[in-house]
């Protein structure tokens, strides 16, 4: 591999174009290799999130430094390939890199300067800017896709701006140092807030958002303005210490925001804080939400605070907006539901409602008088379990339903259940597990740590996600990315085949769903319906069920892993590194200016590098193929070979037989081309119409053909192949890179032309489209032009695809003239697929 461009003698004579191509190809391979190194570092960071790695800040720092440096090199090589066509990438990349360094250094990150934050940008790791309530709501709306009324958040930056513009920090500190009586303090501080003015820029961004929300169809008439303190709803709970306002009209919102900010200095809070605490401590963000016209509202505890070990959750509900319930004025309906799907009700205490008869049913449950129906309760239970899984803690959730029975989550915060005495010790749990029959052990790769239990449900990519019972254990043959929604709902995910670096594995870490992939035989060993306990850390699955400690994460006095500051920094870093926004190269948004994350930069650079390579062939700059040796093979076509390094064995002279080809991707294509069964050597039934239509084609067909038009040409290296074929009436290009590094591998396939009538050509294109899609290609078809790409698959998978491509080329060579009716497409498709399936 190292001797590719230096040591080995190319078998074909390189012309000037060949030499240039070598240079371009060298940059290209550098990009592949760097890309791969960066993606490995990113994978390591993601692994760390899954809990399997033990890491510290110096690991985060060295990873990020390495990622930035290598990412910059990728951009350098892309520019070297393209004559600096992408020089602007440097600036964009530097900005992302600077944000990463800032986060590592404990900075506020890219949203630091924003006075107001829109909902779309919020997530759990923005507590320092959006406060606990705002961050949690952002997480549930954006990551968990749950319905919550979304408005905006006045950030802690906005708060500081307000305080500083009015010189409040200094003046409050003066009061605090002079006045010791809490009542006197808070009265004087309140007077300062009464006189304070919202600075123009802050008022401007607030009013702009209010206007926008009011202008939406069915726009809100009233708003809720709630405190969202840094630390509130977190480690130290200031719950209920700050003020919140509901039913605020748009014009009154700015004043309400100031009042909420002032509640940071209320008498109650001043008593609560350390006496020498400075005014700048405990900064405050403010959440502004449009009000829902609630028909009923209530609170859900995902564990029963009175009996945390009872495997039930508690829901209380009242008619109306629910303040009376929260403030304790009305007790409402109180129900408990099983924590396990399908969430059967366990007990109910319904508040008497006039006009509706109620009675006690045979199972002890009172029927018919509940404020909300069982469907709503079960849906709430689902939301509760999802939130609990996400935050790794039992949750205290405020909810409401509107006139159309739609559920809205108003806020969620940790529910601290203490289980002194009845708490199971870790060792006791381990002992209990050791008594259970082991169904599977020591197999598979850890994707996301966790200990959980539930019934087994077998799934595949066609399983409708909404039919998957929340809290069940999903067992699948493959780790197919289409299972993403099931990952969100499942208690755990186990697959036979799949790797911890794959896309679905990333999703398990994103949703914190315990996951073990690549066990080989989970679908066989875990029959549907079996109750199982999954211990990912031990890579063991037991038959049966154990009552897990109600507060798994505080179990034994530990904090939830996900809540550790290092984990939060890691997630913030990964948000700027791992997500891929540039997904579809065909889309107009696939452009330099939309690169945001490191992954975007890599993806964009890789795509453009491949394009540079292919453009080079199509541009006709590649010359000098005449002296290239012909491949000797038993196939009805002639292929000339240009070896740019390691594509052919080194022996000089002699016939260039198939055995002398050492290029990995080209060998696989040849395997397919040499498959006799795929060749249909009978003369095609050829009509006059076909011939006439063919006559008008060659010019357009040849528009993009290089100088070697008429010849078939393979430019090969050890891991690379660019094959241009004119087979019968078709023109194909296969450009492929194949190695042991799945992330580097790609196949680009372009199929165009043909002598048959338009509709026959199109039918053939449909056929190829279908077959290629079946081979995991991403296919784009315009008339009879088929463009297909397959990327980042394992070597063995790529090899079989390349072989089938070889067969396909042979097989479809004259199909268009045979395809008299559209039924023919199906027949050929079936025939070809049968051939594919015959292979091991």
């Amino acid at each position, binding site marked *: 591999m190292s001797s590719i461009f230096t040591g080995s003698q190319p078998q074909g004579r390189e012309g000037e174009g060949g030499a240039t191509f070598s240079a371009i190809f060298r940059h290209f391979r550098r990009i592949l290799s760097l890309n791969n190194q960066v993606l490995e570092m990113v994978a390591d960071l993601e692994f760390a999130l899954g809990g399997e790695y033990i890491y510290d800040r110096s690991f985060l720092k060295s990873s990020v430094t390495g990622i930035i440096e290598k990412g910059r090199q990728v951009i350098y090589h892309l520019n070297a390939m393209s004559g600096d066509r992408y020089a602007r990438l440097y600036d964009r990349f530097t900005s992302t890199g600077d944000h990463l360094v800032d986060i590592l250094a404990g900075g506020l990150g890219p949203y630091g300067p924003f006075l107001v934050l829109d909902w779309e940008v919020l997530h759990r790791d923005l507590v320092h800017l959006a406060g606990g309530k705002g961050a949690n709501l952002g997480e549930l709306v954006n990551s968990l896709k749950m319905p919550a009324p979304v408005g905006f958040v006045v950030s802690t930056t906005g708060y500081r701006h307000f305080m500083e513009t009015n010189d409040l920090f200094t003046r409050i500190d003066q009061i605090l140092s002079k006045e010791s009586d809490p009542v006197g303090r808070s009265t004087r501080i309140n007077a300062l807030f009464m006189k304070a003015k919202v600075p123009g820029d802050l008022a401007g961004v607030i009013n702009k958002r209010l206007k926008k929300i009011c202008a939406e169809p069915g726009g809100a008439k009233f708003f809720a303005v709630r405190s969202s303190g840094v630390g509130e709803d977190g480690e130290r709970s200031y719950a209920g210490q700050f003020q919140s306002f509901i039913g605020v009209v748009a014009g009154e919102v700015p004043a309400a925001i100031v009042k909420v900010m002032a509640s940071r200095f209320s008498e109650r809070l001043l008593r609560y804080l350390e006496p020498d605490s400075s005014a700048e401590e405990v900064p405050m963000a403010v959440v502004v939400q449009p009000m829902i016209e609630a028909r009923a509202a209530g609170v859900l505890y995902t564990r029963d605070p009175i009996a945390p070990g009872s495997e039930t959750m508690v829901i209380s509900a009242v008619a109306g907006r629910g303040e009376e319930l929260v403030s304790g004025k009305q007790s409402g309906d109180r129900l408990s539901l099983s924590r396990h799907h399908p969430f059967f009700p366990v007990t109910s205490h319904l508040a008497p409602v006039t006009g509706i008869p109620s009675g006690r049913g045979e199972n002890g449950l009172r029927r018919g008088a509940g404020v909300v129906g069982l469907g709503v309760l079960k849906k709430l239970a689902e939301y509760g379990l999802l939130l609990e899984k996400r935050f790794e803690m039992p949750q205290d959730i405020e909810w409401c339903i509107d006139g159309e029975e739609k559920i809205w989550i108003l806020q969620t915060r940790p529910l601290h259940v203490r289980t002194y005495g009845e708490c199971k010790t870790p060792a006791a749990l*381990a002992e209990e597990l050791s008594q259970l029959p082991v169904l599977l052990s020591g197999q598979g790769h850890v994707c996301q740590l966790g200990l959980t239990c539930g019934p087994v449900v077998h799934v595949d990519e066609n399983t409708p996600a909404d039919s998957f019972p929340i809290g069940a254990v999903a067992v699948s043959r493959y780790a197919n990315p289409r299972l993403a929604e099931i990952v969100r709902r499942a208690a755990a995910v186990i697959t036979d085949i799949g790797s911890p670096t794959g896309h679905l594995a990333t999703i398990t870490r994103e949703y914190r769903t315990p996951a073990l992939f690549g066990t080989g035989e989970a679908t066989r060993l875990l029959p549907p319906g079996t109750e199982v306990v999954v211990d990912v850390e031990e890579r063991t699955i037991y038959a049966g069920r154990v009552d897990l400690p109600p507060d798994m994460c505080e179990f034994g006095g530990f904090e939830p892993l996900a809540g550790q500051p290092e984990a939060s920094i890691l997630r913030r870093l990964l948000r700027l590194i791992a997500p891929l926004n540039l997904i579809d190269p065909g889309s107009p948004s696939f452009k330099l200016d939309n690169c945001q994350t490191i992954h975007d930069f890599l993806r964009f650079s890789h795509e453009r590098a491949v394009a540079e390579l292919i453009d080079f062939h199509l541009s006709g700059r590649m010359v000098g193929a005449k002296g290239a040796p012909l491949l000797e093979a038993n196939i009805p076509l002639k292929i000339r070979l240009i070896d740019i390094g390691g594509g052919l064995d080194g022996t000089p002279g002699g016939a260039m037989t198939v055995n002398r080809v050492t290029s990995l991707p080209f060998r696989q294509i040849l395997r397919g081309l040499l498959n006799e069964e795929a060749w249909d050597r009978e003369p095609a039934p050829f009509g006059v119409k076909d011939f006439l239509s063919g006559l008008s084609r060659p010019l357009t067909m040849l528009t993009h053909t290089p100088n070697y038009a008429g010849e078939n040409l393979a430019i090969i290296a050890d891991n690379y192949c660019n094959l241009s074929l004119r087979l019968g009436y078709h023109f194909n290009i296969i450009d492929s890179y194949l190695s042991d590094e799945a992330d580097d591998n790609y196949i680009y396939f372009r199929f165009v032309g043909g002598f048959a009538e338009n509709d026959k050509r199109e039918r053939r294109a449909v056929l190829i489209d279908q077959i290629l899609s079946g081979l995991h290609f991403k296919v784009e078809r315009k008339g009879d032009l088929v463009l297909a790409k397959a990327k980042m698959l394992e070597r063995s998978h790529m090899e079989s695809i390349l072989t089938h491509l070889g067969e396909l080329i042979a097989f479809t060579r004259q199909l268009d003239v045979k395809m008299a009716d559209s039924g023919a497409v199906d027949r050929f498709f079936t025939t070809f697929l049968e051939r594919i399936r015959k292979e091991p």
Partner: protein
Amino acid sequence: MVVGSNSEPRRLLIIDDEAIVGKRLNQIFTKMGYVVEAHIDPVQAVAAAEQHPFDIVVTDLKMQGMDGLEVLRRVKKINPRTRVIIITGYAEMDTADAAFSGGVFDFIPKPFRLDEIKDAILRAVSDMAGDG
């Protein structure tokens, strides 16, 4: 899964100036039935070992106050049977050599996977069993 359930539970000391390492290891080994103490200050940790020696010590290498090699030297002095595992983000061969000549049981570069540290500790436990 539960180690040493027939006799006294093994005592494990974890020393790392980054709290997250101690927290994570504490969580894992408590679950496995060990008595675990985690410290971020090596001086305090060694003082704790003087009060009540440990079977296994897992220590970071580069720390303020006292480095991992000094920890190794001191805990070996307190109890020569203690098995010491050094973890570090700065894996350098000369340090490794010094550590091995000081009687370190194993040397693990950070970041490491759970099963790597578990494996090292289980090997240390069975090694101790050989002491008789």
